[in-house]
């Protein structure tokens, strides 16, 4: 069983936000009204974090794309009272929307703040609703949603391979963010396959994970930026 994981090269990442837009379009993440956005209720399965340190003109600013970490030891699944969020065998931390009771405990427990809640019933413009992806269900109000590593793409790739009577190739399954990244800063694959690109990059000296000290064992690795001296 593969263990799917992601590597994000921060040296390549320009913080352009393509991953954010691609994710929203792929996963039917509902957009919110300006009033709701103002109250901090924007739904987004992947965000670009901006970290600003220092003072003008000696600044260090970093952009950090932040999807769900798909921890191997996820703090969110342990607290879910109804098993609506769980870790699948292939390492993907998933959410069962029809089961979620909306207690938001998983959101409170997630140290990465990557879970979103549907505070209202999503309001789709009837025109824009026509462009929703049939592979991904629309969420109702009152449930928590999150990044699934575009799990539906895995299913699709697997079925395609089965149809053609062959093994699925690792490259056939890429989440929307990885596929679209204009800087090719994101990589995806099987961390357990020592020769996969992600496994190799995860062993890079530049590789680190967010809040490793919490013991959550994230499956999203980052590669730090290079030396910046002129």
């Amino acid at each position, binding site marked *: 069983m593969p263990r799917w994981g992601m590597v994000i090269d921060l040296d390549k990442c320009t913080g352009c936000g393509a991953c954010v837009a691609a994710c929203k379009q792929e996963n039917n993440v509902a957009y919110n009204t300006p009033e709701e956005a103002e109250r901090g209720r924007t739904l987004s399965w992947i965000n670009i974090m901006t970290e600003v340190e220092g003072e003008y003109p000696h600044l260090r600013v970093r952009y950090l794309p932040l999807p769900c970490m798909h921890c191997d030891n996820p703090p969110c699944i*342990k607290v879910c009272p109804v098993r609506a969020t769980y870790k699948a065998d292939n390492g993907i931390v998933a959410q069962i929307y029809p089961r979620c009771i909306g207690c938001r405990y998983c959101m409170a427990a997630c140290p990465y703040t990557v879970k979103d809640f549907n505070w209202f019933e999503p309001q789709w413009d009837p025109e824009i609703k026509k462009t929703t992806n049939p592979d991904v269900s629309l969420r109702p109000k009152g449930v928590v949603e999150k990044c699934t590593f575009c799990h539906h793409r895995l299913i699709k790739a697997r079925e395609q391979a089965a149809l053609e009577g062959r093994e699925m190739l690792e490259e056939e399954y890429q989440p929307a963010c990885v596929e679209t990244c204009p800087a090719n800063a994101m990589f995806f694959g099987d961390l357990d396959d020592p020769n996969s690109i992600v496994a190799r990059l995860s062993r890079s000296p530049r590789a680190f994970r967010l809040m490793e000290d919490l013991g959550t064992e994230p499956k999203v690795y980052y590669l730090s930026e290079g030396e910046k001296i002129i």
Partner: protein
Amino acid sequence: MGYDPDEILYKPIEKPSPVFWYTVAGLLVIIGWALFMYVRQLYLGLGVTGMNQPVSWGFYIVNFVFFIGISHAGTLISAILRLSKAEWRRPITRMAEVITAIVLAIGGLHPIIDLGRPDRLLNIFRTGRLQSPLLWDVTSITAYFTASTVYLYIPLIPDIAILRDRGAKPQWLYKFLSWGYQGTERQKHVLERAMNILMVMVIPIAVSVHTVISYIFSMTLQPGWHSTIFGPYFVVGAIFSGIAALLIVMIAFRKVFHFEAYLKEVHFRYLGNLLLIMSLLWFYFTFSEYLTGYFGHEPFEMRVFFYKFSGKYAPYYWGMVMCNFVIPVLILSFKKTKRIPGILIAAIAVTIGMWLERLIIVVPSLANTRLPYPTGIYVPSLVEWSLLIGAVSVFVLGFVLFSRFFPLISVWEIKEGRETSVKEVSERLESYLPDTESVRY
């Protein structure tokens, strides 16, 4: 039946004043409003509250913890006092137990109010995950609610029997609830046995309830929550707020129903002492909690710490310290101020302070995420305020209704005290003293 010295205790039941109806009507209006707001929330979604990302928990969880905390007033105090045979407990226990029962029901409903999909509530039985502290809560609160309602009911039976015999209306109610209690020796014996068993049982359950509630927070990795002393800290806070709530209720009903003869200055002084002790204990826990956090100076911990100490939540934080420590300690340390008005002020302060403490525990840790998100803002909406006021109204209504049908002071225990305890206590007291016979020069 001749003259009953405790006639005044039946008065609210047998001759309810019109004020009762006004009060009930007023409270029903408020509760109706809150209900309307809740139905609106059900219909529209939790968006009507002020919660957001990352402050995904707000008033509902705060109130949940707060009300469950208050519930410790009762049963725990009455059980401890009964167990330790503190004779001054007699006029107090009933009220304490009523508080527990009502407040537990209110508190227990709050997580359901907080659910995004209450229609799927039963999923916790269908697909429940025992690892989740929320499920532990469901278990322990249910147990506590069962135990404490039984614990309220059992000592109530003789009183109901008295009311039945006095012909109080509605007769069917008293007939049904008295379970044919006639006050025979066997019945008395069974009653006492039952009370003794419950008394012992209810204490660990009560302790477990608030410990488990604290686990909701401390089991996560969040800064400001992930703390080992949260269990006892919450229990101490719960008892603290419970005593305060009990004092408020006692003072209020003493005034309304003219129970001055029963609830004497001394009861308040004793409970005041207890409150003072709890205040100091609370301060000790708070101090340990925050000092260890500060001393370690872990950056995420510090963000939350300073958010409370000098940031947005500083008014609430220092307000809490004021209400929970400074005011009660100042008032209760001096004989001059340790009178009923002073105690009332202290008790109200503590109730507010403990509510603030729950707020300060829940919101700042959520608002200050580990990652550089902007700090969350939480402004409770009208719905949340309405439901808070509604919850308080339900509490008052529950009490008022209880007082309409059942005596707020345990009549039979008072009688028992009057008839048998004086002798019993003096015997007991004598048994404490050194045996005169063995003193030989």
